[in-house]
């Protein structure tokens, strides 16, 4: 697109260079966490990392890919289940967690070939059906003993302090890996392609975008993330009861985090996870009212701030911490390639976030 000599395309800005550096420093500091924090704080942070994985991968699917799924708990549950199975087969428990996610990503591939034929609401509900089906199938396994569930007994091999620290590091490492993979993915040709498909599938196809293959990449990535989160959750919760893992509340949390943080913005999903984590910490004990509050907040955001807190900030202050998109500089127009707009899902801008 740089055929016109008067136009300059910029990807990295000073702001984004500083942000990436800051993110790297924060991650490096977090990596030393277990040497300073108590077990309670470590567990809390581990939970936060899992929330970030959930939010970021759901956002990749719905916010960037336009594929709104209410059935990501299928992969969350399957990830935990596969980890139980692998650990039971004698594999090292932490290797099991990561390998489980890889296996479930492979499982999601054949699922994608029929689910991606569905569109919009049909895809969303179809995914929920898949989740229920997976739930029932897992219940048939005698190791799980139906709804009674089982535990990740193999974690006994580590004493409590080591276990907390290992959980923390594996979760932190997983989160970092997911963020880096998504960042690279969205900056690549695939990133532009998936957003073009989200904005208008037929238009994208008529420009030579490979529709099915691109959707599949993002779908499998999201499945991998949810499965990894499920397996990590298992390592902190230890018990595996199908009902808790295959519950639709997981997707409800993901939707909440992404809607509040900013649908279709990379930074927004992370912010959303942080907000959700804080709300849960402060109000999680207040039972039903906590859930009502979550629902009401999500509702208010989807009605009045459809691009979430980050989307609003980005628009108001021209922020762009991560260099995902393209900035077009100079003549013929100083405007950027795309302008954020407050459409809902599917009406978001193309080509990339600035």
């Amino acid at each position: 697109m740089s055929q016109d000599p008067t136009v300059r395309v910029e990807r990295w800005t000073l702001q984004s260079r500083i942000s990436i550096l800051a993110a790297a420093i924060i991650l490096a500091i977090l990596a030393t966490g277990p040497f300073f924090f108590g077990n309670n704080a470590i567990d809390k942070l581990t939970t936060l990392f899992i929330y970030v994985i959930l939010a970021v991968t759901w956002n990749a699917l719905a916010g960037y890919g336009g594929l709104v799924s209410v059935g990501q708990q299928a992969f969350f549950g399957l990830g935990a289940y596969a980890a139980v199975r692998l650990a039971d087969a004698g594999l090292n428990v932490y290797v099991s967690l990561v390998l489980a996610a890889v296996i479930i990503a492979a499982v999601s591939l054949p699922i994608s070939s029929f689910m991606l034929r569905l569109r919009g609401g049909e895809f969303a509900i179809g995914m929920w059906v898949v989740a229920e089906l997976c739930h029932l199938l897992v219940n048939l396994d005698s190791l799980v003993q139906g709804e009674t569930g089982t535990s990740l007994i193999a974690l006994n091999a580590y004493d409590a302090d080591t276990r907390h620290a290992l959980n923390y590091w594996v979760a932190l490492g997983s989160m970092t890996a997911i963020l880096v993979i998504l960042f690279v993915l969205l900056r690549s040709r695939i990133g532009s392609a998936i957003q073009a498909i989200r904005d208008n599938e037929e238009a994208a196809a008529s420009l030579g975008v490979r529709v099915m293959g691109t959707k599949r990449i993002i779908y499998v990535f999201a499945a991998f993330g949810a499965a990894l989160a499920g397996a990590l959750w298992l390592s902190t919760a230890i018990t595996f009861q199908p009902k808790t893992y295959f519950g639709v509340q997981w997707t409800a949390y993901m939707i909440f985090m992404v809607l509040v943080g900013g649908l279709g913005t990379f930074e927004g999903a992370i912010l959303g996870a942080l907000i959700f984590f804080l709300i849960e910490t402060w109000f999680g004990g207040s039972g039903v009212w906590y859930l009502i509050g979550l629902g009401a907040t999500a509702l208010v955001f989807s009605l009045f701030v459809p691009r979430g807190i980050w989307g609003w900030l980005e628009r108001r202050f021209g922020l762009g911490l991560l260099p995902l998109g393209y900035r077009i500089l100079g003549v013929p127009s100083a405007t950027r390639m795309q302008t954020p707009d407050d459409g809902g899902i599917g009406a978001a801008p193309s080509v990339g976030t600035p």
Partner: protein
Amino acid sequence: MSLLEIRNLDVRHGLLQAVRGVDLSVEKGETIALVGANGAGKTTLLRAIAGAHLPAGGNVRFGGTDITLVPSHSRVGLGIALVPEGRRLFSQMTVEENLILARSAGRKGPWTLDRVFEAFPNLVPRRKAKAGNLSGGEQQATAIGRALMTNPEILLLDEVSLGLSPLAVDRVYASLDTLIHGGTTIVLVEQDLRRAMRVADRIVCMLEGKIVLEGKRGEITREQVSEAYFGLGIAKGRLSA
């Protein structure tokens, strides 16, 4: 050698066979109008040429190479551009941005932003307008312009007049005239027989998935096409399907 050669093509929508054993050749520089009633298989045939729908049988050759199984995203790069039914623009982007995007197909050729605006002068004042805010006719012009920006060897137009006011249709066809006389190879699907017979070099009439009548402009009459269109000829036993 023809630019596009279709031999014995079968295309299915699941159990429904939408295109049955169709043979069609398109010469370079020719304009062909596909006419026929709803459900005759015109759009399906067009989409099969564009690769949006892979055929169940038969083959498609383009510029001498067999492209029957080439996926649609690679066909754009080969020079086959489809303007899908219903325009399908990126509604949040401007006209200019929609056009520039088509450069990503990576084909060099005579079509540039300036030439598209020359061919569609009604788009010039709307250059910076969001595609979603355009009138139907302007959107159609943008969609055609975007396809041209890929510098296609062949342009496939699906139902360009659908949902447009008669005035807007006139404008779109006026600019199509420029393309037709400029030597662009075009296959267009058109419901409006009168318009189809006015612009096309050749009329191809489909019925129930088959080509039932084919002829050069001036060699076939409107009555003949109408009969084929509704399958009346078959009832009388005059046309062999």
